[in-house]
């Protein structure tokens, strides 16, 4: 009689999941070219738009033309990594019923999806390097001090996690309704508008700025970007990073709750 080994948590399978995701994404060569292509075109477009806008109007305080062009370009670079549906696999598996077999395996299922998403993101993150090179042909990007850069990266990573959990929660809706593509697209546009990817949130009328900065979307793009271009000064770093951390915790908690309810539904209803 063969003795089965007891379940122990190992990191190895999750690393494999991430590697598999990277391999999968790299087969979509066409998509890679089009995403870099559209990135380059957008960098150009935004440069022309801001140049035209700054030509006949007064520049806002603290944001001269070169700063806003930097803002837009770095935002687009961030977008290469942030604008991905990281937990798409969760939705797909719910859709085609594979989730049932996922639960039968000796793995932590949400961690599985997280690993897959991480792999996908890492692949896209690699695209940042050629993207930066290409954008240098079109625009000049300001480079801040090393300290600011490090704070930017910390804020960026926190912003990534905010986006990840929002994405996870959204894909969890598929436990109940399956047809979520419209909700997802709505969320994308809402994130665009209030996330700070398209333009600095300080352009919003003062009256609504308080609300907008309180939303989690601002934590995704706006906070890191404003740190980068110096609109958020070092004195406020603790405050804004704190807000980001708070959102990460809240959204992580919400994700955990969504998952528990959703997973129970699968087990009870059979998927």
């Amino acid at each position, binding site marked *: 009689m063969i003795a089965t080994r007891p379940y122990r948590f190992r990191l190895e399978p999750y690393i494999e999941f991430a590697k598999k995701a990277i391999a999968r994404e790299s087969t*979509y060569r*066409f*998509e890679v070219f*089009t*995403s870099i*292509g*559209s990135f380059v*075109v*957008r960098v*150009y*477009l935004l440069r*022309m*738009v801001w*140049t*035209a*806008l*700054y*030509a*006949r*109007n007064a520049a*806002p305080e603290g944001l001269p033309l070169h700063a806003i062009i930097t803002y837009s370009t770095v935002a687009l670079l961030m977008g290469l990594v942030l604008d991905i549906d990281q937990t798409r696999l969760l939705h797909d598996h719910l859709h085609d019923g594979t989730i049932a077999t996922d639960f039968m395996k000796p793995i932590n299922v949400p961690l599985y999806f997280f690993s897959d998403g991480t792999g996908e993101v890492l692949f896209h993150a690699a695209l940042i390097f050629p993207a930066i090179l290409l954008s240098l042909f079109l625009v000049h990007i300001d480079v801040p001090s090393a300290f600011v850069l490090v704070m930017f990266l910390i804020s960026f990573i926190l912003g990534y996690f905010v986006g990840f959990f929002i994405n996870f929660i959204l894909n969890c809706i598929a436990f109940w309704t399956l*047809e979520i593509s*419209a909700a997802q*697209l*709505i969320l994308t*546009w*809402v994130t*665009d*508008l209030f996330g700070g990817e*398209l*333009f600095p949130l300080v*352009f*919003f*009328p003062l009256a609504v700025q308080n609300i907008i900065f309180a939303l989690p979307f601002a934590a995704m793009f706006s906070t890191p970007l404003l740190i980068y271009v110096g609109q958020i000064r070092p004195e406020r770093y603790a405050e804004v990073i704190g807000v980001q951390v708070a959102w990460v915790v809240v959204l992580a908690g919400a994700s955990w709750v969504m998952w528990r309810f959703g997973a129970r539904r699968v087990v009870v209803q059979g998927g």
Partner: protein
Amino acid sequence: MSSTTRRMIGVYRQYWRINVLTTLEYRENFLMWFGFTFVYHGSAIAALWVVLSRFPSMNGWDFRDMAFLYALWMMGHALHNTFFAAIGDVPEHIQDGEFDRILVRPLNELFQTITMPGQIFPDELILAASFFVFATWYSGVHVGLLFIVMVPLIVIGGALIDLAISLVIATTAFWFIRVDALRWIVLQLEQEFTRYPISIYSRGVKLMLAFVFPFAFMNYFPAAFFLHKTDTGLALPAAVGLLTPLIGVVVATLAYIFWRFGLNRYQGVGH
């Protein structure tokens, strides 16, 4: 009336009858897509409004002008999406063998593609028409006889330009099979570039938007004409905007020739 024409009219009537019935049956779907379309266009317009409230003039165009500009583009685009959007399914048909079925039926292949029963919602068209009426009033454009006569033709011309683009992308599927990424990017770029007056772009891009991918004729030139803008950014009078219907017919015809070329190759080379 030849048998073919009679058949096409019959099929077209049947197709719309099915569409109406399906739309009425899936009412919740309709509302959801209405919401999505509203947010998609709404966030673009909202972003424009926010930015232009801080930078009132863009090369002499203010928010009222740009609202009209967007509305004019949206009309042509929505018209295309309501009547011709099914062309975007051609790559899928090729992949799953449905296209072979099209080749076995006694009707023009493009016509069959356009009349594949599916869910077409008039939400975008309704939204576009409402916004257009609003923008016409809001921008203060003069609504004379010329306006009333030409605008419908210009909108149809715009739809034909979009049709040409859709058709060309669908034709590339005969070679590359999977073209979703291309389709998505072209759509995004179309929406982003037509949002602004082309006079802000560099010369090369202006020429491309006028003579290669004639998006500038979808909304920019006609809008410039009706809004009495004197400088179009090219050595062309804004009155060329009245040629949009003609341009639409020309590019659609060229695209159709390319489609037939691709079709012949598909039948010669196999799949």
